[in-house]
């Protein structure tokens, strides 16, 4: 303060600042001298949220997975049992559904990456720099519409004799109809922005000179892509894949609307919640476990090191 207002004594400078500002300054000064207090002020609210709402509900999920229900009243019986998990592992139906869910999530992730990469390459490196923000907005446009609106729009598109069938008829083809393929297709559409945005950002940040240097040293375009672009953008693909994979793993509404008779884990959880809550909870732990395994695998690939 004295440095900023030369000629004023500290006392008169404080008076000029007014009494209200003085209290704020004292508080700021006190915080400045107490780093622990500062940290507490910063983290109390988010930590409360994280522990109570977030980890708390996860703990409740795990706990109730070890309870059972009275088969007549559907009341939850709070006795420790591993029966739910035994049923999960033992029943071929649950195993098939779990594998199908993981398969759908992997297929959606792979499709998103394959579609997003060329798009992001165009928006980040080929398009005229002035038009790039416009293309990024276009890339994210699907996020502006509500989830249900988009899925019902796809239900229309995929319906028998609908726009997709009509467009494919001249080629002697027809749309996939409602089912597993439609589910993968719609989920890919829904989660594409989550894959495209990180890849776009990574490609945009790639220094031109790295690509020039590679070409300068004799590498053709394909070689530069494999040896320079892909390794440097890989962390972004991994980050995007965490979104697309986990979002697909937990989805049950899209399957209900365009999946026909297809069942995913989400559907089983949903249909068991009222009748057999502990079994639903046990089913709910499957995606959690899969995600943990997936994150560990991604981490092992080294892709998260630079995040």
């Amino acid at each position, binding site marked *: 303060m004295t440095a900023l207002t030369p000629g004023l004594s500290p006392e008169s400078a404080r008076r000029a600042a007014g009494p209200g500002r003085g209290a704020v300054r004292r508080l700021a000064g006190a915080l400045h001298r107490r780093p622990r207090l500062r940290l507490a002020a910063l983290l109390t609210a988010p930590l409360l949220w994280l522990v109570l709402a977030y980890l708390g509900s996860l703990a409740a999920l795990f706990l109730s997975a070890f309870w059972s229900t009275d088969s007549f009243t559907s009341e939850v019986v709070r006795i420790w049992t591993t029966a739910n998990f035994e049923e999960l592992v033992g029943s071929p139906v649950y195993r098939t559904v779990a594998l199908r869910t993981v398969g759908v999530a992997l297929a959606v992730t792979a499709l998103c990456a394959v579609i997003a990469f060329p798009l992001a390459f165009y928006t980040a490196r080929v398009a005229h720099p002035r038009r790039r923000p416009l293309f990024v907005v276009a890339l994210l446009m699907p996020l502006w519409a509500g989830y249900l609106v988009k899925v019902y729009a796809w239900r229309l598109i995929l319906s028998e004799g609908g726009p997709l069938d009509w467009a494919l008829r001249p080629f002697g083809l027809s749309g996939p109809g409602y089912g597993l393929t439609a589910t993968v297709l719609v989920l890919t559409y829904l989660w594409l922005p989550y894959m495209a945005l990180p890849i776009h950002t990574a490609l945009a940040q790639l220094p031109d000179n790295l690509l020039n*240097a590679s070409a300068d040293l004799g590498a053709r375009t394909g070689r530069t892509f494999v040896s320079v672009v892909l390794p440097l953008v890989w962390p972004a693909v991994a980050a995007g894949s965490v979104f697309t994979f986990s979002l697909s793993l937990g989805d049950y509404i899209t399957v209900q609307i365009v999946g026909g008779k297809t069942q995913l884990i989400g559907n089983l959880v949903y249909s068991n919640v009222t009748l057999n809550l502990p079994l639903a909870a046990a089913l709910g732990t499957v995606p959690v476990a899969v995600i943990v395994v997936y994150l560990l695998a991604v981490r092992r690939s080294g892709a998260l090191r630079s995040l």
Partner: protein
Amino acid sequence: MEGMAIRLTGLRKTYGGTEAVAGVDLEIADGEFFSMLGPSGSGKTTVLRMIAGFEAPTAGTVELAGRDVTRLAPFERDVHTVFQDYALFPHMTVEQNVAYGLKVRGVPRAERLVRARAALAQVGLEGLGRRRPAELSGGQRQRVALARALVGRPRVLLLDEPLGALDLKLRERMQVELKEIQREVGITFVFVTHDQEEALTMSDRIAVFHQGRIEQVAAPAEIYERPATPFVAGFVGTSNLLTGETARQVVGTAGTYSIRPEKIRILPDHEAPGDPGHSTAAGTVAEVVYLGDSTRFLVDLDGGGRLTALQQNLETSSADLAAFRGARIGLQWHPDHAVRVPETP
């Protein structure tokens, strides 16, 4: 007769409406250390990028060793570049960086390693091959970039202000080393810089760039002693440009003249006649700038105009120098050192 490494003919590059390179013709011989000197925005880097193939010229041709490469991609040209920001691949080790060019050209793994290690030894980085670029200092990264460009034995090495990011001491050492390496490998070096001292100390020949054109191509001494245009006289070294009435008074004839500050001697007595056969002028010392090894005097001439004179600090100390401020003194120089500069063509 030596072969021609590079020939540029009528080279132009326009971005939108602005002309970055406005017609450049240039021939660079095999084994030459050639510098392209100029202020930023003078087009020198754009010319370098067109030789490398990163930019396509708007008009004109680029020939490498007699072959027209104007439309060829960078990977089809026998030219390697040392980039200003080094452009090392961050996900590869130092050794992998250096061996990259060999790898993409299909050199077997064992030979690759041997040659990469030899190149690293040549730039003084033995034993650092396993590190990542991020673990190196700026000077070390610069050396890796140099080794990476040299290891493939290109016909021409392009260097885009490679020493710009280094501190003064390191820069001076690298100037000497670069020159030694160039003599050792015998590859043509095309060196872009805005630092006139760097260009003067290292080059066989220098092209001075200004507003997308070359103002003069000559050996360093020629550029310094006989600048072809007022711009060259002003940009290379500190120069006293005398024009119009001042020139008539001081030199005797009209025209543009350049006198290098170190060619001017201070005569403490402004009425002293000066040595026989020398030109003289009298004036008042406006400013004295102490530079450590030498002192710069800014002198307002009685006949108008201002000259800068540079004196080695052989006996004087800084205390004496302050007394010069405001003093009346004489200046003397040999008429040969008042060089007539042709007006810009």
